């Protein structure tokens, strides 16, 4: 039963995963918390592991969530569910030599979708920040978390440090101070 729910959930996620990766995190997060599979904080750890693994972050998260819910069969059905929609669409587009990206209708749809995807990711950031005690009572703990956030952001935007290193270094900082 759980396997069927996993399959349908990730089939839906795969179908709407325009903009790939990070845009899908709020969708997956809504699904895993509403099914009671994980808390938002546990899902943050999934993203951490998915981000340190090679490959696309959304597919990796699907594999991890699937494994967490129903071990190996769960991971398999989640992955298959996630890739089926794109596979079918690509086969249709390829078979009919359909230049979908040059259609005005598709371009207009993407014109509206892109800012919505940006909004979705900003929402994800706010949600993950509040679930991980970064927004809240004024304490040494909250300040230290906020400092790590700020330095990590600076490292990514200004110093162009690779995301995997940012995750590893913040892990080392965490081990030292907590």
């Amino acid at each position, binding site marked *: 039963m759980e396997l069927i729910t996993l399959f349908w959930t990730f089939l839906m996620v795969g179908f709407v995963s325009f903009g790939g990766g990070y845009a899908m995190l709020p969708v997956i997060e809504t699904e895993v918390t509403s099914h009671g599979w994980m808390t938002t904080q546990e899902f943050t750890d999934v993203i*951490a592991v998915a981000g340190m693994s090679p490959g696309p972050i959304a597919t990796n998260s699907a594999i991890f969530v699937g494994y967490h819910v129903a071990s190996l069969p769960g991971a398999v059905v989640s992955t298959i569910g996630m890739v089926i929609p*794109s596979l079918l669409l690509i086969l249709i587009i390829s078979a009919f030599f359909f230049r979908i990206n040059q259609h005005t209708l598709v371009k207009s749809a993407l014109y509206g*979708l*892109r800012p*919505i995807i940006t909004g*979705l990711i900003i929402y994800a*950031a706010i949600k993950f920040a509040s679930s991980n005690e970064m927004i809240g009572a004024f304490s040494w703990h909250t300040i230290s978390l906020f400092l790590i956030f700020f330095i990590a952001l600076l490292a990514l935007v200004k110093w162009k440090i690779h995301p995997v290193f940012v995750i590893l270094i*913040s892990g080392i900082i965490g081990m030292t101070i*907590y």
Partner: protein
Amino acid sequence: MINKRKILLQVFFSFFKISPITFGGGYAMIPMIEKEVIEKRKWMEMKDLSEIFALAQSVPGAIAVNSATFIGYRLGGVSGSLAALIGILIPNFIIVVLLSILFVLVKDNPAVAAAFTGIRPAIVALIVYAAYRIGRTAIYDKTTLIIGIVTVGLLLILKIHPVIIIFAGIGVGIIVVKIKNWLGIITNLEKKEEHTLLD
């Protein structure tokens, strides 16, 4: 027949090989795919591959996985696309499953728990960084700015399911462009100068 099987195996192993060495999400795979498909295998020209990358972004799913599926189809039809897709997925799948097992084993260790306390705010920074990168190409006029702000508001205040908002976005884009055309306002459907990236 033998030739076809040879192509399928080549497609499978090309993507199988690329996948486990590309950390940092789908975009990290693009240069590796270029190198393999154009320089090494000489399967197609840059012009064709650029078109595939552009198409891959207009379809839901990860750009690297989508590109692999498109390339596989060009080389070997439906079985080619499956060979590429399975090739790119298997190494990721194995690595993520192994890491999931490892994570469950070590997550209650105090040192690991402390590390993850430090990692969580960094993940929030990664998400903000993703928003910043997409925002730069997505938000460039008043309409896109309003759409972006309204989205965050709807999600935070009304807690609407993200999937509904994504579908609404498709409709909103089409309707807004139609209305603006009707009013005689020309809409740039993509940000000028830079190449538009959706991921």
